[in-house]
């Protein structure tokens, strides 16, 4: 059997976009392996993984139980590892904070190789082949699985979710008890913001902003995109304490692949470029026409960001309002 087990991530009982991305990738892989897609989802009581069938799941194993309202590594790993023993070729999940924690647990329990944060997934000569960026995107490996079962985590935004209607019959399952650390709470910021690694549009700011207060300009620009955009930051800006590490894009921060990355006052140090060069479209705004950021940018404006950004925000509002 060459079936694919897809782990669907939810937050507060709602499937995350990355769950549909991974399901889409899983469906394509299963089609190449002539297998089925089985989805497994853990979440709070009342949670239903309704969208799974429409995105390619043949069967859906659902554990809706308040024990796993928050991410609990022990029960998650035990429940999914138990299910994964049923003749799968691959266990697929998103390389999110949850997925990055869960994937190695599953691989260790299943004695399976782990390919983390992959951007492409396929089959060659009957074996699963993955592409994964290394050195934060300065190079990439193509790796072939040499084991009956592999665990693969996929980078968010590497696959566009697609419809593929399948039965998606939901089968309730029980949580398998597992020991480990206990998540007691999730602290949410006062202003809930989209995560820079998950956002479809990222507005990244660098030293050119001159001080922490000027990031208000970028927050306004991000807001003009109507909830699709997040603010990112260069390492220099994070090290200076202007922005939190959660927003850092680059080799010691996050690697992002949004549809649109707008680099503002960022010169383009190699470790920053590494973190954002897989963005679909890159716009650079910088006063130095020789800044390395222009070498990776699709579109550039040479100029004073303090003049360009307010105008850009205004124009985006017009476009979005139209």
């Amino acid at each position, binding site marked *: 059997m060459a079936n694919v087990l897809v782990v669907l991530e939810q937050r507060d009982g709602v499937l995350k976009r990355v769950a549909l991305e991974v399901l889409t990738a899983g469906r394509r892989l299963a089609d190449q392996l002539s297998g089925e897609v089985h989805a497994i989802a853990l979440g709070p009581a009342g949670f239903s993984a309704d969208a799974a069938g429409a995105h390619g799941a043949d069967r859906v194993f659902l554990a809706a139980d308040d024990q796993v309202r928050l*991410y609990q590594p022990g029960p998650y790993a035990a429940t999914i590892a138990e299910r994964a023993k049923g003749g799968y070729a691959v266990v697929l999940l998103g390389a999110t904070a949850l997925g990055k924690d869960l994937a190695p647990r599953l691989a260790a329990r299943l004695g399976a190789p782990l390919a983390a944060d992959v951007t492409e997934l396929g089959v060659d000569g009957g074996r699963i082949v993955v592409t994964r960026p290394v*050195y934060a995107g300065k190079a990439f490996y193509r790796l072939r699985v040499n084991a009956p079962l592999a665990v693969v985590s996929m980078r968010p935004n590497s696959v566009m979710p697609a419809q593929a209607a399948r039965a998606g019959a939901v089968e309730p399952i029980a949580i398998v008890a597992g020991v480990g650390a206990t998540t007691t709470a999730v602290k949410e910021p006062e202003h809930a913001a989209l995560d820079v690694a998950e956002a479809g549009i990222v507005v990244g700011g660098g030293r050119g902003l001159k001080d922490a207060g000027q990031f208000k300009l970028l927050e306004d620009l991000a807001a003009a995109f109507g909830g699709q955009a997040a603010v990112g930051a260069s390492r220099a800006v994070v090290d200076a304490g202007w922005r939190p590490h959660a927003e850092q894009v680059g080799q010691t921060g996050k690697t992002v692949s949004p549809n649109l990355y707008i680099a503002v006052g960022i010169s383009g140090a190699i470790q920053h470029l590494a973190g954002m060069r897989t963005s679909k479209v890159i716009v650079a705004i910088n006063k130095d026409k020789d800044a390395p950021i222009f070498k990776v940018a699709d579109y*550039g404006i040479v100029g004073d960001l303090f003049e360009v950004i307010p105008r850009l925000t205004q124009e985006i509002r017009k476009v979005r309002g139209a």
Partner: protein
Amino acid sequence: MKIAVCIKRVPDTEARVKVGADGKSIDESGVKFVLNPYDEYAVEEALRLKEKAGAGEVAVIALGGDAAQETIRTALAMGADRGVLLRTDTIPLDPLPVARALADELRPGGFDLVLCGKQAVDDSSHAVGVMIAELLGVPSVAAVAKLAIADGKGTAEREIEGGVEVVTFSLPAVVTADKGLNEPRYPALKGIMAAKKKPLEVKPAAMPPAGLDVLELAYPPERKAGRIVGEGADAVPALIDALRTEAKVL
């Protein structure tokens, strides 16, 4: 308090990566190697916990080639007490054999806490620390930016998308360090001198076969040459037009 820290020798983040002649690994010539930045946070945290406890030991363990001895000496110069190198010429891309070799070394050690960096900045599997915990059968928390340990119990905070998870656990445990956990110290000259005399044991790494074969290491596709749409705020309409009609992202 007995603490182990797993560390790795990696290319500096500012280094350019050159693909080697075999097309399957990097060309290391001329590349500056450093202690993995996330492992620096782990070493620092171990030293602070030992200092706070007033007694104990910090052992650093690396898996890699002979050159990793230099990386271990860096951690010893920061203040760790002893080092172990599990020697191997190649580090597999599959993190599980690496975690197995490290777990086998750690198992008889009686450590209260194992600290690792959340990921190595070279192959970034962010896996080995958590795998070690699973193999040892102890709790673990990954990507921790805040840690408190008292009376055999720990509380950690780790960043998730749009929030922070608060996690409690009992010792022994494995914790992997994220940026923000602390500000690592620079080794002082006295520490560098002292490090030369600290014990560093070298033994072969016992790794089972990897489950991933390397087909190739390659450069990412070059981005198509872009263009400057104009200068100053007056160029904004041209940019908007290009994003709408050419790039179709608006």
